[in-house]
């Protein structure tokens, strides 16, 4: 509860400063949310350079449209929404960059190999599906908030989340829950 109140107060101060055109307001929003926004943009675009551009676009939009945000407590979700939409609309020009994550010993099974496989599986997902996964599983938005952020219905967001996980599971050759149950061999 206390943490929530501190977050609300911080957001209110940030919004107030943005509205007042305080010179350091942009820095403080970047300090607070820049990495989060960059992370979501990277998950959607799979490119660090493009993710940076999205964060800048998001900050520009926030600076120019801050008066349209009625509830300062919703600043985080509002920024995520702007960033996700910038990222999804930017996808046509995005060029994947050299992956940051490499297996320490290619061919060696283990956590790194699994992460490389997951990264490749994520690369293969449609951008909107990656956006749903990132907003929900990384940024922590609810299914409803994820839908609002992307301008889609909760059911469509739910579809993307479910289908996204399913595709990742299939790509990783993960056994589904049913397979954990004791089997009686034929």
């Amino acid at each position: 509860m206390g943490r929530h109140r501190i977050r609300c107060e911080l957001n209110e101060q940030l919004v107030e400063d943005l509205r007042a055109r305080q010179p350091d307001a942009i820095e403080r929003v970047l300090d607070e949310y820049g990495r989060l926004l960059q992370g979501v943009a990277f998950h959607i675009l799979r490119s660090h350079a493009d993710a940076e551009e999205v964060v800048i676009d998001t900050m520009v939009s926030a600076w120019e449209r801050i008066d349209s945000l009625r509830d300062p407590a919703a600043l985080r979700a509002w920024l995520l929404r702007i960033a996700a939409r910038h990222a999804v609309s930017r996808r046509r020009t995005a060029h994947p960059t050299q992956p940051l994550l490499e297996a320490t010993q290619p061919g060696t099974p283990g956590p790194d190999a699994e992460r490389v496989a997951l990264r490749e599986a994520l690369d293969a997902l449609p951008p909107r599906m990656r956006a749903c996964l990132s907003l929900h599983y990384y940024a922590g938005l609810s299914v409803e908030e994820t839908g609002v952020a992307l301008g889609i219905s909760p059911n469509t967001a739910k579809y993307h989340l479910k289908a996204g996980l399913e595709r990742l599971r299939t790509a990783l050759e993960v056994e589904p829950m049913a397979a954990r149950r004791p089997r009686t061999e034929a």
Partner: protein
Amino acid sequence: MTGDRDIETFVRRHLAAEAAELPFFLDGERVRRRLAERRRRPWRLLAVVPVAAALMLAVLLGQALLAGPGPDESGGPVDWGPLAVVPTAGGDQALNTGTLRTTQSCVFLETGGGESELLVWPADRTRWDATADAIGFTNSDGTEVTLRDGEPVSFGGGGDSTAEGGVSGEEWLARVDWVARPDPSCPMEIRWYVNEVVSPSAAPLEPYVVVESREFPGVEIACQGEVALTSNACLAWGEELIAGSAIPAGINRVVLTANAANARCAADFYVADDRPAVMTAAVACPSTPSPAGDGSPPPLNDLEARIVDALDSLGVEGQRAEYSSPGASIWAPLDDESAIFVSAYRTGNNRGEFSVIGEQVIAGRTVQRLEYTTGPIRERFECGDVTYETDGATPPGFASFDAFVAGLITALGCATA
């Protein structure tokens, strides 16, 4: 790595690690430079297809001339109330949905994202009823709509914003040729020009099928409307349309709408998700006819109803996942965002290649565990001339998925033990 929870946890950790590994170089100076660059750019109107807009404008002007004087037939001054009014509408048909808000000085749309968008109305089709605080609007097909504060509503039209065009609310106010200027206190960062009003009583259309085009990589096809389409039918319709059309370059999304018993269909073409459609066109309806033919989703068939009823008796709310008549494909989302799937088909109509990897008797029925070439492992049992398959998470109240399968077999009236 095994179940739903495990993959969710793995994905969550992986996404967090990916983000944490990214270097962060941004500072406010780069943002301020971008802001300065934008201020130097010339103002631009929202992207529209000029020919379509011109045609629509010509039609609207023609209608206005044929219809004679508008709301000021009495010759007296027109009371526009709080409306922001321009002479006539543009041709945009992008859809914008939210809640109508009318105050003493402003009329705006409150969107789901918490933004307030000032609505701009065409004088030749709009009336303000001061006694009822209501807006009367005539759609281009002649239908009359009355709107009041607090109503959910969808508008066809187009918009621009300070963020997109770099024009502040004050600048925009000064540039527009007004019939009735909005009050300066109104929200003006985002402006929406109303062209059509979708019936407020109509349920908002939502894409119920979203597929990625195989023929046109990077293009997403969404199908919505009153006519239920399967994913494959939606994909086929969209790809056929794209292949046979001179559509604008750079399209990344096509939203197809099939309405009125599959007799009226339209397509919206998008180049970016956060911008209105660049083109809207009437298009040929899908070659796959509506399963119902009456414009509404077909009612549950016997198999679907049987499964939904059985799930209901187990405390699980099932719904149609996909129209697959004469079979059934039902899913039931659970509270924790996992789900159960149950499908059924006439025995003998197997669905692709699979291996039987296990078999046991549950509630007197032989239940096989199947592994298809793709997708999850499923449990299958036969009952009469119908074969059922189910997979997914264990619903609340059951100790295991096998216990749920036992309950399902019993609820379907298939238990023999």
